[in-house]
């Protein structure tokens, strides 16, 4: 898969995650009913683990997904590193949140699980993007170069550094 496709897929998944966390944040702020088939969403959302010092974890997730989206949209080495760092840290934190749901809270929030699945996919894409790095332009090509022609038609001599390796030179 090309880097362009990896970035595009990451952006789409990050947008889906943004939508989920925005919905959870909206429900939390407005007190609207939360669509939930497991019956555990409210328990999880009302648990002390749903906040970090007063800030909803959904808000943290929203910022995280937007950060991954921005890093996926940007080209370059720093963007790749940022995307991978954000996505992998989010994956580790989401693993901890799954543990809190199952062991500490005793309830499962399907919206949170959906977010966790998206984070896993984002982490995989970020690692792939990190490994499929294109050659930086600063690396010189090793292909043999042809001597340039002067305006009077004569050839310039190749400098020692630009000469083809001895093994590809032909004897007359």
């Amino acid at each position, binding site marked *: 898969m*090309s*880097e362009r496709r990896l970035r595009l897929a990451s952006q789409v998944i990050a947008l889906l995650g943004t939508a989920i966390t925005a919905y959870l944040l909206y*429900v939390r702020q407005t*007190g*609207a*009913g*939360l*669509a*939930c088939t*497991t*019956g*555990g*969403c*409210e*328990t999880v959302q*009302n*648990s*002390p*683990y749903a*906040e*970090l*010092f007063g800030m909803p*974890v959904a808000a*943290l997730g929203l910022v995280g997904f937007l950060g991954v989206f921005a890093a996926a949209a940007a080209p370059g080495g720093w963007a790749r*590193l940022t995307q*991978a*760092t*954000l*996505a*992998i*840290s*989010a*994956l*580790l*934190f989401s693993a*901890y949140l799954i543990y*809190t749901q199952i062991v500490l*809270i*005793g*309830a*499962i929030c399907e919206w949170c699980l959906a977010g966790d699945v998206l984070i896993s996919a984002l982490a995989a894409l970020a*690692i792939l993007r*990190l*490994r*499929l*790095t*294109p*050659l930086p332009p600063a690396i010189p090509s090793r292909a043999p170069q042809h001597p340039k022609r002067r305006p009077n038609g004569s050839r310039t001599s190749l400098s020692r550094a630009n000469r083809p390796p001895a093994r590809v030179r032909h004897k007359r």
Partner: protein
Amino acid sequence: MRRLPYSRHRFTVVIAAAVAIATILIAASQVSARGAEQQATAATPSEPRVSPPGTSFAAGISQHGAALGSPSAPLTLVEYADLQCPYCGQWSRETLPVLVDRYVRPGKLRIVFNGMAFVGPDSDRALRTAVAAGRHDHLWEVVHGLYENQGAENSGWVTDELIGEIVARVPGLDARALLDERWTDSVDPEIRRASAAASAAGVKSTPSFQLGPTGGRLELISVTSLAPDGIVPAIERALGTR
């Protein structure tokens, strides 16, 4: 696109940074959650440990087994709860008295307690005591008393002494007889019935609630918070449609 030789150094740096960030977040979550739980515990009234006689929230309301309120109330709310579940305790302390005053006392609502015991040994001791009290139509005083004195999960907080204190405040209930009765086979059918009802309703967490017309089909409802405004709209809607 060309694939470069895998850069182990770069990946190590990314992993180290990610682990550092995740560790900070997890530590923050633990500290934050612990602080919130301590606040909740501090907010729980500890004195007096047991409501004085005559001031029980259920005083003057008819009880039949696990049901609180008039059997002819148009609406029934079934609560599925574990007596060790902290969120069940919070709901019982904050919201149940409001519902009792607003709907149960005027005869609009009947509340049924379907106890579950999945957290641990204290859950079982507490539930068997509550069910035994229900056989004498005093389940709700015991349930409320246990929630008011709820301790840390499986710390051995459901002691005979605590139950004795709670029961001593309930007129017509003998603590010694209740402590003996809870371990007899007489409470098992009710516990099995509640467990089967929870499975049939699709209950996956506590507290969970079913609401519907008395004697009719009950629906599992979604509560938006443990505060009264998390369930009152659903009750109002159900009453409005009748």
